[in-house]
């Protein structure tokens, strides 16, 4: 089993490398078959080879590389690429199509009696904690206290500010749509500017993308780059999914509390009436859920998406921090 796994992974790497070489040799600027994160593609391909070696999807993916390889102008290079292409096809044909209903793709992940959380990170990886939280659950305070206890950086709105720098955008013109925690009454909506000139300039500034998407993509880049350089805690911003997609080990935590408790906390902290606080909280939850679902395709707050979910009403800020500290104690990156 292990042997077949390795063989599939090796083949997946060869397919990915073939795509890279073919694209380079074709000189095209129109895009290649496997765009995006290398390791993610290799992993997907390996799974496909392992589970459906004779399947249509795998064959058509490889055929796309073949289509491009046939267009290489240099005969010798074309022949080299086609030889590699044919060899890959032959090797795939030799893989037994015996994957059945009782086989498991990732045995490590399926083994519930071992801790996958600590196995996924190596000592070379940085300690990254992603905290998602509902408003009024004191998630921000817990995150801040945890960063203080662990002596690592804490990022929330700072990421958004860096994105603004990258986009060379003025702060008033872009809304921090992931910042559900601060400007309560404004609900984070910058006034829409309908002037044609502004629209054209925005279209150009954000590469034709909607502003919120351009901000999200830049945030993703920043979080990914930061994860390669330092230990940190990041609040929200779909960081857990961004890091998962980029195969960067991290710990994801979700902090919430019962609705009534959160309303009470909002009334205290923000000096709001009960009705007003209820209305606002429901609205914020809806927005938060929509935002998270839009960019990740996942359900916000669903326990299966996190390593740890905490009801802060049961533990309070201090105990929640201690609980998380105990959890990451065994982590290979813990200093």
């Amino acid at each position, binding site marked *: 089993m292990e042997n077949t796994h390795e063989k599939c992974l090796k083949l997946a790497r060869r397919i990915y490398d073939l795509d890279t070489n073919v694209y380079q040799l074709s000189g095209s600027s129109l895009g290649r078959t496997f765009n995006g994160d290398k390791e993610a593609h290799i992993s997907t391909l390996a799974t496909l080879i392992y589970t459906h070696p004779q399947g249509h999807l795998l064959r058509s993916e490889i055929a796309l590389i073949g289509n491009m390889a046939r267009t290489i102008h240099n005969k010798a290079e074309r022949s080299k690429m086609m030889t590699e292409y044919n060899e890959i096809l032959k090797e795939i044909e030799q893989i037994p199509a015996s994957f059945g209903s009782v086989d498991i793709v990732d045995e490590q992940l399926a083994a519930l009696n071992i801790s996958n959380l600590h196995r996924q990170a190596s000592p070379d990886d940085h300690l990254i904690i992603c905290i998602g939280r509902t408003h009024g659950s004191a998630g921000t305070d817990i995150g801040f206290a945890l960063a203080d206890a662990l002596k690592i950086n804490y990022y929330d709105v700072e990421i958004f500010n860096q994105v603004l720098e990258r986009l060379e955008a003025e702060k008033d013109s872009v809304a921090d749509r992931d910042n559900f925690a601060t400007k309560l009454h404004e609900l984070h909506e910058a006034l829409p500017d309908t002037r044609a000139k502004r629209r054209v300039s925005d279209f*150009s500034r954000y590469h034709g993308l909607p502003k919120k998407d351009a901000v999200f993509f830049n945030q993703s880049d920043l979080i990914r780059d930061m994860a390669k350089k330092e230990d940190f805690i990041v609040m929200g911003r779909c960081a857990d999914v961004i890091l998962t997609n980029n195969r960067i080990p991290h710990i994801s935590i979700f902090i919430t509390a019962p609705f009534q408790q959160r309303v009470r906390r909002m009334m205290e902290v923000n000096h709001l009436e009960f009705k007003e606080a209820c209305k606002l909280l429901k609205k914020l939850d809806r927005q938060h859920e929509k935002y998270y679902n839009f960019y990740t395709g996942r359900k916000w707050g669903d326990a299966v998406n996190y390593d740890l979910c905490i009801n802060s009403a049961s533990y309070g800020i201090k105990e929640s921090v201690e609980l998380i500290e105990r959890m990451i104690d065994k982590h290979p990156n813990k200093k």
Partner: protein
Amino acid sequence: MKKFIAFCAGILATLSCSPLSIMAAEAGSESTANVPLWLCIPFAGLLLCIAVLPLVKAEWWEKNQPLAVAAWSLLFIIPFAVKYGVGMATETVLECILNDYLTFIVLLFGLFCVAGNITLEGDLAGSPRVNVIFLAIGTLLSSCIGTTGASMLMVRPMIKMNSWRRRKSHIMIFFIFLISNIGGCLTPIGDPPLLMGFMRGVPFFWSLHLFPMLVVNMVVLLTVFYFLDRRNYRKDIAAGMRPDISKPGTTIRLEGAHNIIFLVMIVVAVILSGSLPSLSAFQDAAGNVRGIPFGEVVLGFPSIIEIAIILLAAFLSFRTSNPEIRTKNHFTWGAIKEVAVLFIGIFITMQPALMILKAKGGDLGITEPYQMFWATGLLSSFLDNTPTYLVFLTTAGSLGFTEGLVTTVGTIPVRMLIAISCGAVFMGANTYIGNAPNFMVKSISDENGIRMPSFFGYLLWSLSFLIPVFLLDMLIFFL
């Protein structure tokens, strides 16, 4: 609706249950008017090969396409020659190659070459909004430079913009729907059937009558596309795909822009091919178009002029453009080669089907605009839409209407002419072979990392998205 269903059943019954030998009006004479239906088998066989072989024997098909095409063509030519004589067979094949295929493929070749030397450089990221804007522009452009011209010009920028995405085949499918077909309905330059109409007395700007249909189709299809693309765009983002927008600001520049002159040259050539035959200088005493004879078949001077201008434009485009542009555009001969090979087979083997249609078109009992719309459209989905349009135009002209547009084939009510034009132009989008640019876009997409659906897969897309729109067209405009 009942009338419509009864009509469709009628067409199907006529085409599928008619006796093997379909007799034309001139019964008894051994002319091509009573072509037996079994002679259509090679055409069906070739279509089946195009549909099935890329799925089951992809590599064999890729290597042996010319052989398969030659085999099916011979399977039509030899029995045809046995039944009607070698002379008739030679004439039929020559007529189809010289007068239909040659101008068709030269036009495609010219546009393919010129468009391949233009590139849109920039870092615009493909998102639902940008894609909708691009599709809308391309659709309108189709009426100005033809569906093939617009397709060739827009296909690469579209692929490039969306290269960061994983789910993008639907973008190219809607590209085929809108830019490669529907968009060409506003002028005779847009699509060859309308040019044929222009040559038969339909005024040049009359096709603007089709604007309401175009708007309805564009609005419906672009709305559907937006939501479909948004769904896929979200899935791509959720899977971690993202465009490279690290640099602030977008720079868009057109490289090889001077090729637009050559594009205009080609458009002028197409207009000339439609307008010169009516000039007395190009006609003999009997009113036939003058040209170079190849036995009984004459390659008209207007066609020769068209071919010469297009080839000159392609040559000049290659001579004056930086080869680097072609490399960036991933310009290869693969797509045009595939289309040239497959379509010569399609053009030859579909001759019996066209002969039957010419003979039986008037007997189908089609007298209502909605019937014209569907009959022209459904047949244009598989046959060449130009002769199909002509058959139904002639049929409509012979129905004896006294009010409507006066053409050289008779007076045709405006609503009926609109129905015939819409059917021929719109429904070429139903299959990959319905219109030449469809196949070109598919081939170019296949070469650039986009997994396009198979023949039947594409048919499913058109059944799901186009047929409901055409039903809507019928309800609004043709009932």
